């Protein structure tokens, strides 16, 4: 085992797949000599050359569409979209083409592509560079979505995503890039569609997405001091969704709280809450709670932005209310 950062683990995963399969290639803005604005592809151009690490113009629709077309004939592109917000420029290619082509062609083609991007705020990037908009794509049949929260998960999942028949939206959060964690020396893969219980508990199930997994774990420590034992589940994969893992936990704890950075209204938490209610109604002692981002475009000033993203205190407050402890 080694300790690495999330971005190092991601880079290792990308490199291992580049080395393993010559059909795999990367494309995106500034991923060449600069190594990507977050360093995800640092050093890869020098090792693999400009046809395996392709630096593009600022052209999201072309980047995503090119990945679509190339994947349809057997190449394995991993496209980087610098900021999740930018994906809107490529919306037709993602939701109107990539999501639909396998179905409308009656299965004649596969699209073994990965689109990687990072969303989320808390770093003063302002309203157009801080969004968590996975809900837009969660709504689309035909897309797979993963949101790894730890170095171990990001490496195992990027390798699986690249090997998958696709198409996979691989959603990172830049606030996680410098977090550290252990990864094995030997190769490992994590399957899509598997959530993970990151912390065992008995009183409440907290289902968290991406960076909120870390906040939820902090919240769980606080809750423990108050005598509330919280089980924290890292969703990891939105589509396919491991609803069984979540429901099994809720049947044990009888309380559920979903936490995501994305805006609360219409966030994936709404779907999770509905599914938990449908499947575990008789086990619930309280409605399924949701903690989500404040419904504003993310403001720049810190005094404003810090109100937008759920923090451990907000999670603790909601959790206590679900446990009938009101302030």
């Amino acid at each position, binding site marked *: 085992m080694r300790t690495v950062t999330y971005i190092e683990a991601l880079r290792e995963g990308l490199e291992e797949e580049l080395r393993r399969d010559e*059909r795999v*290639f990367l494309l995106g803005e500034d991923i060449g000599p600069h190594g990507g604005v977050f360093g995800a592809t640092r050093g890869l151009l020098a090792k693999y050359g400009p*046809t395996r690490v*392709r630096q*593009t*113009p600022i*052209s*999201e*629709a*072309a*980047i*995503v*569409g*090119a*990945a*679509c*077309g*190339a*994947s*349809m*004939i*057997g*190449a394995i*592109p991993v496209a980087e979209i610098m900021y999740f917000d930018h994906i809107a*420029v490529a919306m*037709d*290619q993602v939701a*109107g*083409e990539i999501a639909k*082509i*396998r*179905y*409308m*062609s*009656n*299965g*004649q*083609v596969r699209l073994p592509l990965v689109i990687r991007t990072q969303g989320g705020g808390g770093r003063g990037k302002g309203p157009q560079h801080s969004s968590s908009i996975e809900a837009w794509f969660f709504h689309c*049949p*035909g897309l*797979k979505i993963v949101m790894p929260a730890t170095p171990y998960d990001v490496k195992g999942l990027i390798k699986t995503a690249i090997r998958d*028949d696709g198409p996979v939206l691989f959603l990172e959060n830049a606030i996680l890039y410098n977090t550290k964690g252990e990864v094995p020396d030997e190769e490992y893969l994590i399957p899509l569609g598997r959530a993970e219980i990151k912390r065992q508990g008995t009183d409440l199930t907290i289902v968290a997405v991406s960076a909120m997994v870390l906040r939820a774990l902090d919240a769980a420590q606080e809750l423990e001091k108050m005598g509330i034992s919280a089980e924290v589940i890292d969703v990891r994969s939105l589509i396919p969704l491991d609803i069984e893992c979540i429901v099994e936990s809720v049947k044990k704890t009888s309380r559920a709280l979903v936490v995501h950075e994305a805006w609360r209204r219409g966030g994936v938490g709404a779907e999770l809450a509905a599914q938990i209610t449908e499947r575990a109604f008789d086990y619930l002692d309280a409605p399924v709670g949701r903690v989500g981002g404040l419904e504003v475009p993310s403001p720049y000033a810190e005094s404003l932005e810090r109100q937008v993203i759920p923090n451990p205190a907000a999670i603790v407050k909601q959790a206590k209310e679900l446990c009938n402890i009101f302030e």
Partner: protein
Amino acid sequence: MKIAKELKFQFLKTMVTIRCFEEKAKELYLAGKIRGTVHLSTGMEAVATGACSSLNPDDYMNSTHRGHGHCIAKGVGLREIMAEIMGRATGVCQGRGGTMHMFDVAHGVMGTIGIVGGGIPIATGLGLGIQQLGLGRVALCFLGDGASNEGAFHEAVNLGAVWRLPVVYVLENNLVGDTTPLREVVLIDDLADRAKSYGIPGVIADGNDVLDVYAKVSAAVRRARSGDGPTLIECKTYRWEGHQIGDPCVYRTKEEVEQWKKKCPIKRLKTHLMREKLLTEKRYEAIVAASQAEVDQAAAFAMDSPEPDPQTVLDYVY
């Protein structure tokens, strides 16, 4: 360019077949046999025929909502196209795509795409895949004058140019986008001029002269295959029918339509072949009769085919 007479006869047959097919599709639609809407390419047969004929069977093509002619010219079976238009299980996509969304990978048809401009980045991607995998093939993209105003066109052609991808972008300029005349939405006369801003050749072809289209697209295909990158070929043409069946065509005059019908691509090739003493009226009529028979058989096949099994509705989401 010297074009063998056998090839010219092939062109004639293909164009006549497309014409018969589109007229049959119109007839079936007006008889209530087709759901949704249909976008006919009547009058534009020379572009589909000349362009697709310059491709090898394993080259790729993608196209637009007005793609029946392109698919026919690329070799997709008439029966499978007609059945797809009629939403039958025997269609190229088992009825899932319909008239606007036809894929036939066996013939290199990597999608007719219903979003204007949506196929252009995908065509750039096909070129990228060809280059990555060293396939030695070419991707040909059909797009319309309207699509050249989409952002996706700009992004995709530029990327294709910069990476010297083996793509040929064939722009069918039929002077109108849906119900909006082109002259109201661009200030330039020749859309091929846009190629200059990407650093690639912009070529103009007479879209109603199949021999001119073939010569120019073939040159572009050779250029692409040799690794020199894409070309934008603007084929000037005209659609005889409205944007979709039932379009009252308020945006153009009957006189304009009649003027363009005089430039009928089939009539022009027929005249050329007769002048060259290669074709008689009798032989022409036999060609038309044969094509009509094939189209009629395709229609009968489609009408006789079942709809897709309802149980298959969830297949191939992933």
